[in-house]
């Protein structure tokens, strides 16, 4: 008798403990944002969290997502990767085990996403990573058949940026003239893919670009003077500084102010699209005038083309809510929420395999980030998106006392031609 009472009590307790989780499972769709909320990249992680929150609120305000005839609300849960591999493992474990998320998305550092990947894969949870390294979708060790992977990469990759860099230099910056190009790039898988994309494109299109030096630096390094002194001695036509925002600002400032690179002789850029952030314009200052930057999403430019139609409204929405402008990583998180919501509706179920299948056959209007042709789909081979990249030249704006971009490439959306100082 006593045993039965204890059993009943234990059952009642178990129900009390389990009920909220069960209710959450039944009544909401849980989206897990795995990003850096602490550590060196916490600022950008916050940008992603804010943008994802906006997307979730938008979808919920419109009634939520339709799943099997019912409207379910979205719930955003954030897992902190602590800007480290170990942090990514604990952050994703929380998302998968404790929060039992239906989709994982976001992130800034490929190394952290890659550390979390085996755990996500083991549970078959759809994953929409947003770091730039194409390792997520192009590493054969991920499984016997990458096309059956549950990873759908939503970000411009190093390979794309590298190829666009070669095209931009050949077409707009040098306008077909032969050029001596020097790279100062981040010693990371992202940097290596970036340079590979550039070199492959030169071979593929037989572009008149001679890469006379490729100097590397460690991630997080901020003193590039010795490498830049060497680069200056080579008198190149183009210097491509490739790194994250802070690294790029330091490279350009040191090249111009400290080392004294001849700006009339050497063009600087295009820098990585991943640097396009309000702080980039603020931190770089006048020193960055005439430099160029690739962009997947521009902080300030708004080219008059349907592909960029959502940039301005998104900026206004973000500024109204948070008082600051979003960066490209935030935008990719915002879009990822919409992609996940659409795929869940298409799947008509929260069954993970069905969501993966739906992501594979998804075709929807592009979101904020521009896509070639305006239709967003993941290519069947690498599960990447064919983004539309632009290049901007930064010019000093006396009214705001900051640099502002002018789109200079590709020619169909260019607002002006590239100008050498």
């Amino acid at each position, binding site marked *: 008798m006593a045993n039965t009472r204890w059993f009943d009590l234990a059952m009642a307790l178990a129900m009390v403990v389990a009920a909220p989780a069960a209710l959450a499972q039944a009544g909401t769709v849980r989206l897990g944002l795995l990003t850096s909320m*602490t550590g060196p990249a916490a*600022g*950008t992680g916050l940008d992603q969290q804010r943008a994802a929150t906006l997307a979730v609120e938008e979808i919920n305000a419109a009634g939520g997502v339709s799943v099997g005839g019912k409207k379910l609300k979205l719930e955003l849960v954030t897992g902190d990767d602590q800007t480290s591999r170990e942090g990514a493992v604990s952050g994703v474990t929380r998302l998968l085990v404790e929060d039992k998320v239906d989709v994982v998305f976001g992130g800034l550092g490929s190394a952290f996403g890659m550390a979390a990947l085996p755990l996500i894969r083991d549970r078959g949870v759809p994953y929409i990573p947003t770091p730039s390294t194409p390792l997520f979708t192009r590493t054969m060790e991920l499984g016997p058949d990458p096309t059956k992977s549950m990873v759908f990469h939503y970000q411009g990759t190093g390979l794309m940026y590298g190829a666009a860099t070669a095209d931009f230099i050949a077409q707009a910056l040098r306008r077909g003239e032969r050029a001596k190009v020097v790279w100062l790039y981040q010693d990371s898988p992202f940097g290596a893919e970036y340079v590979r994309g550039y070199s492959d494109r030169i071979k593929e299109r037989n572009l008149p670009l001679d890469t006379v030096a490729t*100097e590397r630096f460690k991630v997080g390094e*901020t003193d590039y003077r010795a490498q830049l002194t060497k680069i200056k001695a080579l008198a190149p036509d183009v210097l491509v500084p490739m790194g994250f925002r802070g690294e790029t600002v330091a490279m350009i400032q040191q090249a111009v102010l400290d080392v004294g690179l001849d700006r009339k002789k050497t063009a600087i850029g295009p820098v990585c699209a991943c640097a396009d952030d309000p702080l980039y314009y603020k931190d770089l200052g006048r020193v960055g005038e005439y430099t160029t930057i690739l962009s997947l999403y521009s902080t300030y430019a708004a080219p008059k083309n349907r592909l960029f139609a959502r940039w301005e409204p998104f900026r206004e929405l973000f500024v109204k809510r948070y008082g600051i402008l979003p960066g490209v990583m935030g935008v990719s998180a915002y879009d990822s929420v919409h992609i996940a919501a659409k795929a869940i509706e298409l799947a008509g179920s929260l069954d993970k395999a069905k969501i993966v299948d739906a992501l594979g056959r998804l075709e929807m209007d592009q979101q904020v980030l521009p896509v070639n042709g305006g239709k967003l789909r993941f290519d069947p081979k690498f599960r990447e998106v064919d983004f539309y990249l632009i290049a901007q030249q930064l010019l000093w704006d006396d009214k705001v006392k900051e640099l502002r971009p002018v789109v200079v490439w590709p020619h169909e959306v260019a607002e002006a031609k590239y100008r050498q100082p």
Partner: protein
Amino acid sequence: MVLDSSSLLQILIWGLVVGSIYMLLATGLTLIFGVMKIVNFAQGELMMWGAFLTFLLARWLEVNPYAALAGSALLVGLAGVAIERFGFSRIRGTAKINEIFLSIALILVLQNTLARVFVPYFREYAQIRTPYATEFFDLGVINLRYDFVILIGLAWALMLGLGYFLYRTAVGRDLRATSQNRSAAMLMGIDVRRVDMLCFCIGAALAAVAGSLYGVINPFSPYAGTIAAIKAFAVIILGGLGSVTGAVVGGLLYGVVESVATFFLGGSWRDAIAFVLLIVVLMLRPEGIFKEGG
């Protein structure tokens, strides 16, 4: 790669600039070690707090960052006294492992506190802007920013001032006496407790100055102090543990070698080559370039 005269001059200047920062950081470290026989692994975090406080003071008080630097050094120096009083002095004489773990705890606490305060306002990096960022000395083959000259000048002025303090004042003599023989110093009536506090104060203040100067020429983050502290340790081992002269020579040598290696071998070798130098020196002279107490 042909090294022309302007490149050579620039490389040496970059080496001296970064070497001066190592010199300040390592001197603080060696002073603490020399007197208290404590290895303060959190010296790099004090450095970054110094940079951050200079950044904030210059902005809030709207003063020249070089003036704000004095306030920052004072605040971090006082924090050093608190760390010594409430931390290291309490575990003095216990197992060495306690000091190591206290240092590691300090790294985590100082770094994470700074990150909490820092990141929401400045994202990943900040840089201290001086009014001289675009002012140059014309050296003929190259132009040299005022900031670099101020940095080297300030670092050397502090070293000379420290030298004067250590060798020409009564308190400095107490400090050297404690470093050479703590028990004898106590028997001679020197208040070694006060010496310990002063020593930690100077060491922390030097770290703050090093951090502030680093922040003037490079963007910095709350995490940038860790690798700088590791290099400072290498410098004091290279120069000779506890030797201020060794920290000065080691710091400058380390900076120049790092700069030259990066120029010829590339950025991937920046950190490694200096440690190769350290191994070579230790093989030839295990006690470092200068002996302890030099």
